[in-house]
C-alpha cells in the first residue's frame, strides 16, 4: 500500500508493508489496530500513539496528542483528496463560512486593498455576530455574498488576491 500524504505543507511518501512502513525512504517498525472508525492505536518503534481522524465540513485531519494535523491524500486510488486547510499559501485566498448563518454586513468592497486581520464582513449565527477577517493582505477580488444572504457551511464569502 502506497500513499502520498500532504501535511504541514510537505508531501510525505509512505509505503506500508505488513509491520513495517517506509516514510520518505526511512524504514520504521509499526503495529496498528483500528479501535473505531475514527480512532487508531498506532505503535511506531515502540512509541504508542492514539490517532484520531476528524472530518469536518471544511477539512480532514489527524489529531495526535491533542494537536491537529490537517492532511490531504494524494493517491489516484484514494476516493477523497481534499485540499488541506492552511496548506498552500500561494494564489488567491478564499474566505469561506465555516457554518450556516446570515450575512449581517459587508464591510469592504470589491477592488479595495486589505491588510492582514482586517474585517471583511459580519456573519450572524446563534445570535452571535462574527467578523470574518482575512489572514493575508491583498486586494479584494470578489465578494460572493450580499447583506441578508443566508450562507451554508463551506460557502465562499470572498476572494482576496
Amino acid at each position, binding site marked *: *500500500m502506497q*500513499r502520498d*500524504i500532504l*501535511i*504541514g*505543507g*510537505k508531501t*510525505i511518501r*509512505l509505503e*506500508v508493508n*505488513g*509491520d513495517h512502513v517506509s*516514510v*520518505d525512504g526511512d524504514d520504521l*517498525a*509499526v*503495529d*496498528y*489496530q*483500528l*479501535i*473505531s*472508525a*475514527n*480512532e*487508531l492505536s*498506532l505503535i511506531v*518503534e*515502540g512509541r504508542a*500513539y492514539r*490517532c*484520531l*481522524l*476528524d*472530518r*469536518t*465540513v471544511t477539512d480532514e485531519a*489527524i489529531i*495526535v*496528542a*491533542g*494537536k491537529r*494535523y490537517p*492532511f490531504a*491524500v494524494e493517491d489516484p486510488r484514494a*476516493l*477523497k483528496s481534499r485540499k488541506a486547510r492552511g496548506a498552500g499559501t500561494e494564489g488567491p485566498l478564499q474566505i469561506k463560512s*465555516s*457554518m*450556516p*448563518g446570515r450575512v449581517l454586513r459587508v464591510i469592504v468592497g470589491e477592488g479595495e486593498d486589505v491588510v492582514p486581520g482586517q474585517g471583511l464582513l459580519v456573519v450572524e*449565527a*446563534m*445570535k*452571535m455576530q*462574527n*467578523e*470574518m*477577517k482575512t489572514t493575508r493582505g491583498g486586494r479584494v477580488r470578489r465578494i460572493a455574498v450580499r447583506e441578508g444572504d443566508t450562507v451554508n*457551511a463551506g460557502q465562499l464569502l470572498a476572494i482576496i488576491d
Partner: protein
Amino acid sequence: MRILRAARELGISTVAVYSDADRRALHVLHADEAYRLGPAPASESYLRGDLILNIAAQCGADAIHPGYGFLSENAAFAEACEQAGITFVGPTANAMRMLGSKTSARQLADAAGVPRVPGTTTAATSAKDALAAARKIGFPVMLKAAAGGGGKGMRAVEQESELASALTAAQSEAQRAFGSSDVYLEKLIVRPRHIEIQVLADQHGHVIYLGERECSVQRRHQKVIEEAPSAVVGDSLRRRMGETAVALARHAGYTNAGTAEFLVDAEENFYFLEMNTRLQVEHPVTELITGLDLVHLQLQIAAGEPLPFAQDDIHLRGHAIECRIYAEDPDNNFFPSPGLITGLSQPSGAGIREDSGIYDGWTVPLDYDPMLSKLVTYAPTRALAIERMRHALDDYFIGGIATNISLFQRILSDADFQAARIDTSYLDRLLSAEPPAQSVTETVTHSEQVAAIAAALFNASSGKPSEAGANAEAADTPWKQARRREGLR
C-alpha cells in the same frame, strides 16, 4: 440532564419540555414524561412561560426547575408559577425582581451596606445624561444592560469620544437580547478578578455561603474557565466576602441558591457586581470542593425543608476546575460550529466529572447557545487539577465539528494561568499575543510522520464497512497483516 438526574435521585418524577430542535436531546430521552413546546426558536418555545405552565397544569406537575438560562431569571414567570400554585425552584418573584435588575440590585446593595463599584443607579436615557454620569465617575467606564447578563449589552469605554456610539450599540444589543434597552454606567476597575460567592438560603431564615468561585478567565465577558477555590482568596477574605453576600441575601429576603458576583482588585478590595438568582453553570466546582449537591439542596429548599447543615459545617477541600466546552472554532474567530457529531470519546476516571448532553450521532442545533459539555476535574491541589484537566482534554475527542478544546489546552499550559496570575482581561491578552508557534518546519517532524502514517492507514481502510470498529479486525489488508508481531522489538 444535571437537574433531571438530581430529581430522580430524590425520587421525583420528571417532565421534560422540548422544542423541535431538541427532540433528540438527552433530557427528553431520560425524562419520565416529555412534551413538545413549539418550534426551534426560543421565543416560540423555551421563553413561552404560558405554554410551559399549560403543560405543567395538564400533567399535574408540583414544581418547575427553570435550569440555567431562558426563564430562570424571569420574575414574571416565577410570579405566574406562584399564581398557578406551582412551586418555582428558585427565589420568590419579589426577591428576583429586587436582585434581577442590576439597577435595583445596586440600590439594594447600598441599603445593605454591600460595597460596589461607583456608578449610576438608574439607566442612562440619553448620550448627554451618560456623559455627565461618566465624568462624575471618571473614565474608563463600563456600560451594562440593566436586565442582562452574560456579556450582552456590555461595552467598555476608555474615553469621552467613544461614549455615544458605545451607548447606542449597548442599548440596541440589550433591547434585542433582553427586551429592555436600559443601560447603566459604572467605573471600570483595572485588571480585576471576577470572584463570586455561592449562597444558599432556606425558607426558615437560614442563609449560608459555600465559598467562592474564581471566574476571571473570560472572553467577551463570557466565563470560559471557573475554579474553586480562588488561588488569591484566603480565609479572611473568604469570610468577609461570604458574610457580605449573606447580608445581601438576607436583605432581599432571598431563598434557594444564588450567586453574588464581585470584582476583586489587587488590594483585596471587593465590589459587588450583581446577584444571579439561579443555579450557575459553574456550580459543579463548588460541589466538588464542598462535597454537597446543589441541585438536591435547591429541590429540598423549594419543598420547604430547612438546610441540613450550618455555616460551620462547610469545609472546603482540594481544588476543582471547569472548562466550558463549546461548539466554536478558536482558530476561526470563535465562530460557532454546530453540526453533526461524527465521533465522540469522552474522558472519565479518577477526579473527572462531565456534565454533558451530547452523544455520537447528535446534531448540535443552530438555535441555542453552543455549549456542548462542562468538563470538571478535581484533585487535592490546583497544580494537579490543572494537570488532570490537561490530560482529560487530550483524551477528549469530538469529531465532525470544531470545538474550543485547543483553547483550553493553550490556557492550561500558559505560565500565567498556572501561576494564577489572571484577571478578567487575562484571556484577551493571551489571545492577542502571538499564537504559539505553529511550527511550520521545513523538514518533516516526527509528529507529522506519525500523523501521516495514521492518515495513510485511515485512508486505506475507508470505504470498508466498519460499524463502530467492530469489524475492524475482520477487514482485510493492511489491517490484518500487522496484527501479530514476532517477538519483542
